[in-house]
C-alpha cells in the first residue's frame, strides 16, 4: 500500500486532525441573464416539455394496438414509438439506439465539449429548475446565504417547508410522469388517482419522486462531481481541441479591482476580481482555476463576465468558450480557429461516420424487416410414432408470429418430405393436407401443434415448414426441422 499523502485542508492549521470527508459548501448561485442563460432556458423548457408531453401524444394504430405514440408495454412485451413497433426479439433496435446515444455523446463531447452536461442532462435541467425555486422562495444569492446561516425559527421553518413542498410537487410530477411511458397514460392517470393502479406504478412513482427530491433538491452538483461517471470519462476524451469554458488568464491576470487599476494602469489585467463568475456558477466552482471536473460548461460565468466587461468598458470574452489550442493562439496574437474547423476534424468525422453508419443500418433493417415469423419445435419424446398402417407420425409445435396490427390469414405448408400430410389437434385427421390455413390474431403469436404423418418406409430426413402471410409475397418465413422415423434409407 502506498502511504497516504497528507491532505492539506486549505485555511486550516496543519496539526488539526485530517478528514477525508469534504463537507459540502452550499451553492447559492446568483441570477444572471445573458445569451447562454436564455439558451439554457430554451433547452430546459424543451427537455421538460418533451418529458411531460410525450406520453400524452396519441398515434392511431388501428383497433388492435394501443394508440399511445411512445409506449413501453412491458406487460405485453411491445415497444411502440410512433410508427415503429418493436418485439422483444427485435431488441437490437433498442440496443442500436443506445449505442447511437453513446456514440452521440462522444460526438457531442469531441465537437462542443461538455454540452450535454451543461444543457441537456436531466440532473442539470432539474437542478436548474430547483435553483429557480430557491430563488423564488428565498431570494437571490445573498438572501439565501443569510437565510442559510440564520438560526432555525418560525420564519425559516415556514420558508423551508414551503420550498420543500414545491420541491416535492415538482419531484412528484417528475416521478409520476415516468410511469405514463409504460401504460396507456389517460387510463393509468385515472387509475392512479382512484387508487386502482398497479402497485408497481405507485412504487415507481414514490422511488422516482424521492430520487428527484434528493438528487435535484439537495445533492445537485455533488452528483456531477462524485457520482456520475460521465465527467470522469470526459476528462479522458477532452483534448486541446475540445471546446471548453476557458478563463483567459493571459488577459485577466493579474487581477485587480477597478480602483487599483485606475491607480496604477498597466499593472493589472482585465479581471477585476469581482467574483461574479463564482457567484453565478451552479456547481460553485471558480473557473479561473482552470478546467475542472466540476465545470459542466453551462457558460453562465461567460454571461456574468461579459456583462461586467461591458459595464467596465472592456472587450467581452475574458471567460469564453474556447479550445486550449485557441487560447494559446489568442495569447500569441493569432486569430482564433474558425468555428467550422473546430467541429470538423478527424475525430468528430469518425464519430459522425460511425454514428451515421449505425443509424443507416438500423433504418435499413427497419425498412426491410418482415412482420411474419415462424418457429418450430419438435416433440422429442417420443421422437416418432408408428401408426397402424405403418405410416410414421411426428409432432411439432409451431409458433406463428403475426407482428402486424391486424389479423392475417397465413398458409402453413410442408416443404419436402414427399407424401407427408399434416393436421392439427383441433381438426379431423381425415382433413389432413400439405397446407393449412390459420388466421393469426393481430399482433400476437399463435401456438399450433401439428401432426405430420409420412407414408410407410419414409426415412429420417430434414424438411421445412413455411409460413406465408396472404397478400404479400415478402411476408414469408420458414423453419427447418427433422423428421424422425424408425426406417432407414436402405429399406
Amino acid at each position, binding site marked *: 500500500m502506498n502511504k497516504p499523502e497528507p491532505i492539506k485542508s486549505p485555511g486550516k492549521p496543519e496539526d488539526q486532525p485530517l478528514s477525508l470527508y469534504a463537507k459540502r459548501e452550499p451553492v447559492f448561485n446568483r441570477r444572471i441573464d445573458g445569451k447562454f442563460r436564455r439558451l439554457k432556458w430554451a433547452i430546459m423548457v424543451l427537455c421538460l416539455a418533451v418529458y411531460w408531453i410525450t406520453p400524452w401524444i396519441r398515434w392511431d394504430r388501428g383497433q388492435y394496438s394501443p394508440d399511445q405514440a411512445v409506449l413501453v408495454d412491458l406487460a405485453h412485451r411491445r415497444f411502440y414509438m410512433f410508427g415503429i413497433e418493436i418485439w422483444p426479439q427485435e431488441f437490437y433496435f433498442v440496443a442500436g439506439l443506445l449505442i447511437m446515444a453513446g456514440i452521440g455523446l462522444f460526438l457531442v463531447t469531441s465537437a462542443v465539449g461538455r454540452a450535454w452536461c451543461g444543457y441537456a442532462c436531466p440532473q442539470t435541467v432539474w437542478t436548474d429548475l430547483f435553483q429557480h425555486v430557491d430563488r423564488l422562495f428565498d431570494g437571490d444569492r445573498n438572501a439565501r446565504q443569510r437565510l442559510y446561516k440564520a438560526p432555525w425559527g418560525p420564519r425559516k421553518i415556514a420558508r423551508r417547508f414551503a420550498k420543500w413542498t414545491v420541491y416535492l410537487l415538482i419531484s412528484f410530477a417528475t416521478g409520476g410522469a415516468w410511469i405514463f411511458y409504460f401504460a396507456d397514460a389517460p387510463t393509468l392517470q385515472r387509475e392512479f388517482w382512484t387508487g386502482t393502479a398497479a402497485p408497481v406504478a405507485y412504487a415507481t412513482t414514490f422511488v422516482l419522486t424521492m430520487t428527484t427530491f434528493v438528487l435535484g433538491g439537495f445533492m445537485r452538483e455533488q452528483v456531477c462531481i462524485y457520482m456520475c461517471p460521465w465527467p470522469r470519462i470526459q476528462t479522458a476524451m477532452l483534448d486541446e481541441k475540445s471546446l471548453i469554458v476557458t478563463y483567459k488568464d493571459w488577459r485577466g491576470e493579474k487581477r485587480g479591482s477597478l480602483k487599483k487599476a485606475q491607480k496604477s494602469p498597466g499593472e493589472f489585467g482585465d479581471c477585476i476580481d469581482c467574483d461574479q463568475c463564482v457567484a453565478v456558477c451552479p456547481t460553485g466552482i471558480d473557473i479561473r482555476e482552470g478546467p475542472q471536473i466540476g465545470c459542466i460548461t453551462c457558460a453562465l460565468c461567460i454571461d456574468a463576465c461579459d456583462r461586467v466587461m461591458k459595464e467596465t468598458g472592456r472587450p467581452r470574452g475574458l471567460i469564453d468558450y474556447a479550445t486550449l489550442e485557441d487560447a494559446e493562439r489568442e495569447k500569441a496574437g493569432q486569430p482564433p480557429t474558425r468555428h467550422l474547423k473546430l467541429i470538423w476534424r478527424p475525430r468528430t468525422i469518425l464519430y459522425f461516420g460511425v454514428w451515421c453508419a449505425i443509424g443507416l443500418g438500423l433504418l435499413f433493417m427497419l425498412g426491410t424487416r418482415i412482420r411474419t415469423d415462424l418457429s418450430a419445435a419438435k416433440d422429442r419424446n417420443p421422437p416418432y410414432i408408428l401408426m397402424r398402417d405403418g405410416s410414421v407420425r411426428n409432432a411439432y409445435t409451431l409458433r406463428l408470429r403475426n407482428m402486424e396490427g391486424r389479423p392475417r390469414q397465413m398458409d402453413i405448408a410442408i416443404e419436402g418430405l414427399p407424401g407427408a400430410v399434416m393436421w392439427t*389437434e383441433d381438426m379431423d385427421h381425415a382433413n389432413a393436407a400439405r397446407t393449412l390455413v390459420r388466421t393469426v390474431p393481430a399482433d400476437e403469436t399463435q401456438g399450433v401443434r401439428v401432426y405430420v404423418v409420412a407414408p410407410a418406409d419414409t426415412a429420417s430426413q430434414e424438411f421445412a415448414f413455411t409460413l406465408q402471410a396472404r397478400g404479400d409475397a415478402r411476408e414469408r418465413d420458414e423453419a427447418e426441422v427433422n423428421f424422425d422415423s424408425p426406417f432407414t434409407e436402405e429399406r
Partner: protein
Amino acid sequence: MANKRIDEATNTETVGHEWDGIEELNTPLPRWWLWSFYATIVFSIGYVVAYPAIPMVHSATAGMLGWSSRGELARDLGAQKNERSKIVAELAVTPIEKLPGKPALMRAAVAGGAAAFKVNCVQCHGAGAAGSSGFPNLNDDDWLWGGDLAAIEQTLIHGIRQPGDKEARTSLMPAFGKDGLIPADQIQDVTSYVLSLSGKEHASAASRRGAAVFAANCAVCHGPDGKGSRQFGAPDLTDAIWLYAGTRQAVSEQISAPRHGVMPAWGTRLDPVTIKMLAAYVHALGGGETFAPQTQPQTQAQTEPQAEATAAE
C-alpha cells in the same frame, strides 16, 4: 498499558499497542456505517419478535405474526385449489362424452391430465406416453380396448385384468404351446400365417397350413381376418403395431405361452375428475378416436370365459 499517541504522518491517534515497532491507527468506523449497523440490530430485534427465529429442541420460536413457510405453502396451495375449483366442479358434472363440445374445459382437462399422467402413469407408459414392450404406446391410433374418451375412461377406472374389480377389462389367451393345445409344428405354421397377415412374411406353404389352424383356434377372438376384437382386447394382427415384438420368435412365443399385461384400476386410487382429465389427456395425444356408437365400451368382457386368444401382439 496502552501507550496512545498521535501518529505524525496522518494526525490520527493510535490504539496504543505496539508489536515490533508496528502500531495500529485508531480509525473509527464511519458514522453512517455505525448507524446502519445499529439500525440492523434494531431491525433484528423486531424480526426475532415477529418471525420464527430462535431454534429450540424440536422447533423454533413461533414469532408473533404466526408466519411459517409451511403455512405459506398451504396458503398458496389452497389458493391454487380455490382457483381450480370452478373447473373441477364443472368437470365433475360434465359427462366425458360432452367434453369435446366444451373446448375451454377440454383444454383445462388435458392440461390437468398431463400433470396427473406424470405422477401416476409414466412409470409404465413412459414420460412421452410412448410405452415400451408390453406397455402400449398411447400416442398411436391402435387401441386394444377402444380409443374414444369413454372407453379410455372405462379402462382407467377399472383397469385391465385387475384382480378384484368385476368390471375390469379381462381376457386370457390360452397358452397354446405350453399347455399342449397345438403341436409345436402347427405353432410355427400359425406364426407364419400371422406374420403374413401384416406383410411381414410372404405367403408360403407353412402360412397356408397355418391359416386352417388360425381359423380353428384363433379366429374366435382375433376374428376370421385377424383384425382383432376390442370386445376381448384382442389385438389387430394385420397392422404394423406389435405390443411385444413383431419378430417371428416373439410372435411364436406369444402363441405358445402368452404374456398378459395388467393395468391397475385407478378408480379406487384417483378421484373421478382426475381420471376424466387423464382420459382427456391420453385421448389428446394424437390417436384419440371420435365417438361412434359402435365403439361403446364392452363392460361385460370378463363374462366371456371362452375368450381365448388375446394380447398376442
